[in-house]
């Protein structure tokens, strides 16, 4: 390597580490836990802490591929609708007499197909993903209603509902948490340790240059959207197992929660930047904050307001600190 004489050395690992977004999230998470513990005597209870995770594992499962999609420079607004569609396909076929596990596979396949359609429209027709998934947002939810109307499917076998309600053996660890942990590690490795992950970043940073470099951009996009659909369907499996029932309006409005978490996790909404640990931390941060507020019986609307403020403050804070630092240096 030719290093020019006037070049400065590589930025120190320490400062690189200290300035990371993830640390800010760790600090915020710590603060949130401390505030919750001091406000509510019920917070620091192992069972409660584990049970708390039930409420955001489905969103978290969707957030994993959403992080990929946003890093690659796109967005998927149809995740919750796709969840609804695939879950209803699963439930309806179970009701029609199909074995629950086969029905589940069918549901997963339906979710993947929903994602694939998004991917094809984005990659092949070259429509912006926001536009495509705004359309399928209505379409997929609509399909769920077409299939099930005002009906409900209940009576899932307990082996199935355990996916959403159960605990691992005799521990207080919820099954959905384990499922999420597995996929979080898988997606984390995929993003940070594989060629595919690297290409996702590259495509998010400059799609044209990737095309000119022989990167199969279209294929990556299609894979990502399909993956997103598949994970939405999986989240639907967990959610309907947790409810023990399925209705077409399941998971209404999840998409904005998911995007909020991914962005709070430090993923650049314009693509090209972000990490899996950041996203996971943000998911837990939001979960803990919401749970703390629920324990204090804060109304839902006010909870949303505070999450909104958290999002803005978390993005403003580092900038503010940086400006402060540069001013004090000057």
């Amino acid at each position, binding site marked *: 390597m030719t290093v020019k004489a006037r070049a400065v050395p590589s930025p120190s690992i320490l400062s690189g580490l200290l300035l990371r977004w993830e640390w800010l999230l760790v600090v915020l998470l710590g603060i949130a836990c401390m505030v919750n513990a001091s406000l509510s005597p019920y917070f620091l209870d192992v069972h409660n802490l584990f049970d708390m995770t039930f409420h955001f594992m489905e969103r978290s499962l969707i957030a994993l591929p959403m992080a990929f999609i946003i890093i690659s420079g796109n967005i998927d*607004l149809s995740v919750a609708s796709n969840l609804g569609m695939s879950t209803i396909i699963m439930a309806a076929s179970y009701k029609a007499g199909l074995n629950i596990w086969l029905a589940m596979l069918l549901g997963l396949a339906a979710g993947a197909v929903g994602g694939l359609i998004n991917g094809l*429209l984005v990659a092949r*027709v*070259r*429509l*912006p993903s*926001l*536009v*495509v998934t*705004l*359309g*399928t*947002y*209505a*379409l*997929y*939810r*609509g*399909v769920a*209603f*077409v299939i099930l*109307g*005002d009906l409900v499917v209940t009576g899932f076998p307990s082996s199935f509902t355990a996916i959403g309600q159960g605990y691992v053996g005799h521990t207080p660890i919820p099954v959905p948490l384990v499922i999420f942990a597995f996929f979080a590690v898988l997606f984390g490795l995929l993003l940070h340790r594989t060629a595919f992950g690297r290409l996702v970043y590259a495509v998010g940073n400059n799609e044209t240059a990737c095309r000119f470099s022989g990167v199969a951009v279209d294929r990556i996009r299609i894979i990502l959207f399909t993956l997103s659909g598949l994970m939405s369907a999986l989240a639907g499996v967990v959610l309907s197992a947790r409810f023990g029932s399925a209705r077409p309006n399941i998971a209404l409005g999840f998409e*904005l929660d998911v*995007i*909020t978490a991914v*962005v709070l996790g430090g993923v*650049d*909404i*314009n693509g090209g930047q972000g990490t899996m640990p950041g996203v996971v931390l943000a998911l837990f941060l939001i979960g803990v904050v919401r749970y703390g507020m629920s324990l204090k019986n804060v*109304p839902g*609307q*006010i*909870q*949303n*307001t*505070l*999450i*909104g*403020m958290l*999002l*803005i403050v978390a*993005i*403003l804070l580092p*900038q503010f600190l940086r400006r402060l630092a540069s001013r004090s240096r000057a």
Partner: protein
Amino acid sequence: MVTVSEEKKGRSLLLLFAGVREMGISVFIVFLIAAVSLRSPYFLTVDNLVYILIDIAILTIVAIGETLVILTRSIDLSVASTLALSGMIVGMTISKHQGIPPAVAVLMGLAIGAVLGSVNGLLVAKGRIPPIIATLGTLSIYRGLVFAISGGAWVDAHEMPRPFVYLSKNTTLGIPNLVLFAIIVAIIFYYFLNHTRTGREIYAVGSNPSAARVVGIRVDRILFLVYLLSGTLAGMAGVLWISRYASAQSDTASGFELQAIAATVVGGVNIFGGSGTLPGVVLGSLLMGIIVNALNLIRISPFWKLAVQGFIILLAVVSDALLSRRLQQAGASEGAS
């Protein structure tokens, strides 16, 4: 020889169409109208068409604000919450002070919207928060404020002064007031976007933000301005909304932001900024209105409505994309020959 020139003429005609960005959606609307008319003769009556116009008036106003923002490569997800908050504040005020004239109520809505919009503007322009994130945040915050200031209560029809409720019902010169409001807003912003320097700078900022900075456009000011205007229009829409539905609630217009964005992109505004026209946006709103109206008229099952609506939106944007690409190609070969 004749055939050659004929062909050339045909191509030029195509090119002419290609130049009109609204062509794709216009064609689509005509097809849709034809198809629906076959099923329901009532569709093409003056009555029904006026009804559609009334129905899309508020959507159009909000979509115009959204357009300004999207043109600068940004987005405003908070419009529905702004609308609700403005509506709630105005609703609560007029229910307490029945004497307030409707015009003052509208001005109040504009002012509240302007304040809320400028908060977005500050966050984006000065705080340098990416637009989606900033307005995703204020979407929740404003919505929460609606709940907080009303304490979960609501404003009823009988609490509102009559003149205010009739604001959205009456007609002026035979034109329903709501439609008139939308027309005025559309004309003002058409003029603003096409005939003022600032309007053109909005396009410039969206077309190439870094170049805009280099040529001396105050990008921050423009960003602030579009959010201010978007908020203002949403605030005004809030007043019209509570007048039309004679009720203000904490879930007023929830999810309306996606409809506004849909109308904008269906109307041909590039979601990546820089291009899009006001007539296109009006057509986009119109298409949304026609879909809803048509689905009712042809008596489709309520469970099919959403799916069909989504399908038509997709169909509209896909066919528009394919058509304009086809025309562009025709234009390219024309230019070369």
